[in-house]
């Protein structure tokens, strides 16, 4: 980042404004938690606030707003793989092994009619 002293002084004002915004948003995160919203709403809202805070840090403190194209392309690729990682747990629902071995084991240890339940679970799993 090439900036003369005058530009830096202007940047400094921006840093303090972002600092104030981050403090307010941190308190808002806790305040929202006190509203006892439904779990899905609470998780969604908290993650939205966290994303706004993270964006402020990245864009202003890390100067991402005025960076070079190379950095943007590295980050774009990183976030593709990051979101793939985040979506990975969803894939467990369509796992063909889901509901077979684990259920058989659980049924056998529960002492019930393990084979019948396991067979049922296997069908559901497939």
């Amino acid at each position, binding site marked *: 980042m090439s900036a003369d002293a005058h530009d830096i002084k202007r940047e*400094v004002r921006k*840093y303090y404004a972002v600092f104030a915004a981050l403090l307010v948003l941190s*308190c808002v995160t806790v305040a929202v938690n006190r509203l006892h919203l439904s*779990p899905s709403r609470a998780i969604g809202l*908290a993650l939205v606030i966290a994303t706004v805070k993270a964006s402020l840090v*990245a864009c202003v*403190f*890390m100067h991402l707003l005025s960076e070079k194209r190379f950095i943007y392309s590295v980050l774009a690729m*990183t976030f593709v793989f990051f979101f793939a990682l985040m979506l990975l747990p969803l894939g*467990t629902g369509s796992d063909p092994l889901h509901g077979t071995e684990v259920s058989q084991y659980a049924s056998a240890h529960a002492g019930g009619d393990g084979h019948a339940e396991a067979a049922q679970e296997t069908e559901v799993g497939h």
Partner: protein
Amino acid sequence: MSDAIPYAVDIRPDTGLNNGKMGIWLFLASEVMLFGGLFSSYVLLRTGASHWPLGVDEGLNIWLGLVNTIVLITSSVTMVMAWASLKMQDFDKFKKFLGATLLLSCVFLVVKAFEYGGKFAHGSVPSKNTFLAIYFVLTGVHGLHIIGGMVVNGYFWGPGSKMWKTDPERFTGRIEIAGLYWHFVDLVWIFLFPVLYLL
């Protein structure tokens, strides 16, 4: 300077960046994947569990978490101010701001140590349940990153600051790079706090 590593200060024509800055962004990309893997594990464990406790149920103190969030955000501001001070040729201010960053990192670790101590005293160890296991892994790895940042910042505050007299432009670049890492550590905590303490 012809024997020195090229593009330490000068801009590479192909990337538009100096090597240090390009290197730190590639490193941060790998760090996103490290924490991405851990967050993905958290989602997998949580969605697969029949019951998932709230942080407060496991003895986490929201207010201590909030204090640490504020401490880390403040340290990010002092870090960027340390860099801005060098840009404004004010070395004394730089020392004060980077010193404040170091002090705030110590406060963060002390608060975390109190939290860990309280949990261990009540038998809340990683082997107790899945929530505590992932809590200790996530905060532990994050804490190690804090310690790593403190070592680097401590060096630049102490012996490393001599470079300001010989090569101020390169030293300013180093502080910018250390700052990018420090802001990333702050950014990770911004997600860890709600995920572990509130949700």
